[in-house]
């Protein structure tokens, strides 16, 4: 099939081919979630590298450099992360609001490669309000795996998006603050303090064997950081070493912090 076209026109039209701009392929792969962009944001624990793609935020990492971040990211996800100047404006706003304690603005997360158990643990951690903490055992009980306390700890250590999923609000079952994947325990204390919790006070309560607070007027017992517990005046505050002791004293568990499962397995 040939056309009636003179060679000059044919050559001129063929000469209008144009290579795609550099970066188009990468942006396309980011849009479908087969590559990622990352940028640096500020936080109470210093600069953080945040990676994202069209499916959601894929990683948050602390003190490191671009090359190390990229190498680790590639090893974990198999994808290439490219440094860009800034987060997309709407994502930056959402993360800022999330770090300020707003749990109700939705941030899409790309958690491919994780197990259903890990995701259940992380989604449960998202329910812990700013300024409050829960022990590993509480998460285990809440997701219906009361004996999987150690596995909960491991899953939280693998949280790829710390701060956005607030694994820093989950503490050891003995009440001590415990480890933190984003730069160690000091960062965990810094963030909790920033959020209005008092790590030193929590640990001294734990050392004294106190796990729950009760109110002798309502006969309800709570996790010590529960917003309901903090409303109880000194005069009416009762300490309990276990949920069994609280139940034996005729107290029922708070409906907000649901403390019953927290001490199921130490």
């Amino acid at each position: 099939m040939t056309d009636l076209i003179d060679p000059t026109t044919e050559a001129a039209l063929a000469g209008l081919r144009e290579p795609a701009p550099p970066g188009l392929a990468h942006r396309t792969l980011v849009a479908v979630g087969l590559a990622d962009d990352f940028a640096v944001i500020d936080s109470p624990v210093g600069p953080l590298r945040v990676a994202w793609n069209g499916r959601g935020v894929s990683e948050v990492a602390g003190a490191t450099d671009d090359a190390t971040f990229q190498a680790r990211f590639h090893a974990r996800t198999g994808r290439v992360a490219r440094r860009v100047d800034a987060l997309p404006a709407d994502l930056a706003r959402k993360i800022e609001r999330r770090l300020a304690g707003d749990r109700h603005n939705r941030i899409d997360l790309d958690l491919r490669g994780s197990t259903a158990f890990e995701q259940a643990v992380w989604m449960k951690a998202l329910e812990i309000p700013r300024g409050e903490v829960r022990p590993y055992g509480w998460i285990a009980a809440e997701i219906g795996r009361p004996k999987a306390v150690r596995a909960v700890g491991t899953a939280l250590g693998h949280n790829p998006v710390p701060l956005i999923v607030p694994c820093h609000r989950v503490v050891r079952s003995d009440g001590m603050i415990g480890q933190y994947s984003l730069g160690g325990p000091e960062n965990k204390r810094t963030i909790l303090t920033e959020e209005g919790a008092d790590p030193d006070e929590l640990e001294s309560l734990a050392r004294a064997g106190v796990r729950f607070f009760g109110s002798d007027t309502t006969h309800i017992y709570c996790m010590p950081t529960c917003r309901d517990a903090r409303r109880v005046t000194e005069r009416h505050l009762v300490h309990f070493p276990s949920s069994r002791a609280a139940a034996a004293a005729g107290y029922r568990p708070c409906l907000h912090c649901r403390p019953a499962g927290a001490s199921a397995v130490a």
Partner: protein
Amino acid sequence: MGMMDERSPADVQLATRLATDLDGSFEDLVLAHQDRLFTIALRTGGDRHDAEELVQDAFVRAYRALGAWPPARIRELRLRGWLTTILLNAGRNRARVKRVPTAELVFDPGAEPAADPLARRDERETWARLLAGLSPAQRTAVVLRHVDGMSYAEIAAAVGRPEGTVKAHVHRGLAALRTALLASEGPPEGLRAEEIPA
């Protein structure tokens, strides 16, 4: 002729890989087709920015479709025509939303290749402008046939029109280009009325 498989060996192989490992081979699909899709978007549409967005949009639609289809269907895909259809549909949707009258489209002459003399850049600009003056149907047909190099059968399938209609669009489009080129160059030297000897 319509039954002939016009797929290039590279596209046949790519379709097979997409059918078995979409995430592992999608980048190769993008790299293999981004230049031609960008060219089609730029030469039928408008400025470079819009063309870039359109190509990205088309690839995202392609990825979603591939993710939802059974492997047997993906293996049989004629990637060149299929991606072209997605691009043209995405462009139509976008034009409808933006309501840009095609006559007002500003055509980008394209980046100048490094070794190109100025004259060549001017020439590309001229041809890009001439293309912009065609009706959308003629412009699309001419770009797919003579800029991208698709066959009439492929174009007919891609735009969903009979082959005869596509041929007519190309022929009329080329004729209109010739007329417009002559008009833009002005009357040829030596043919001005006052210089024609009595």
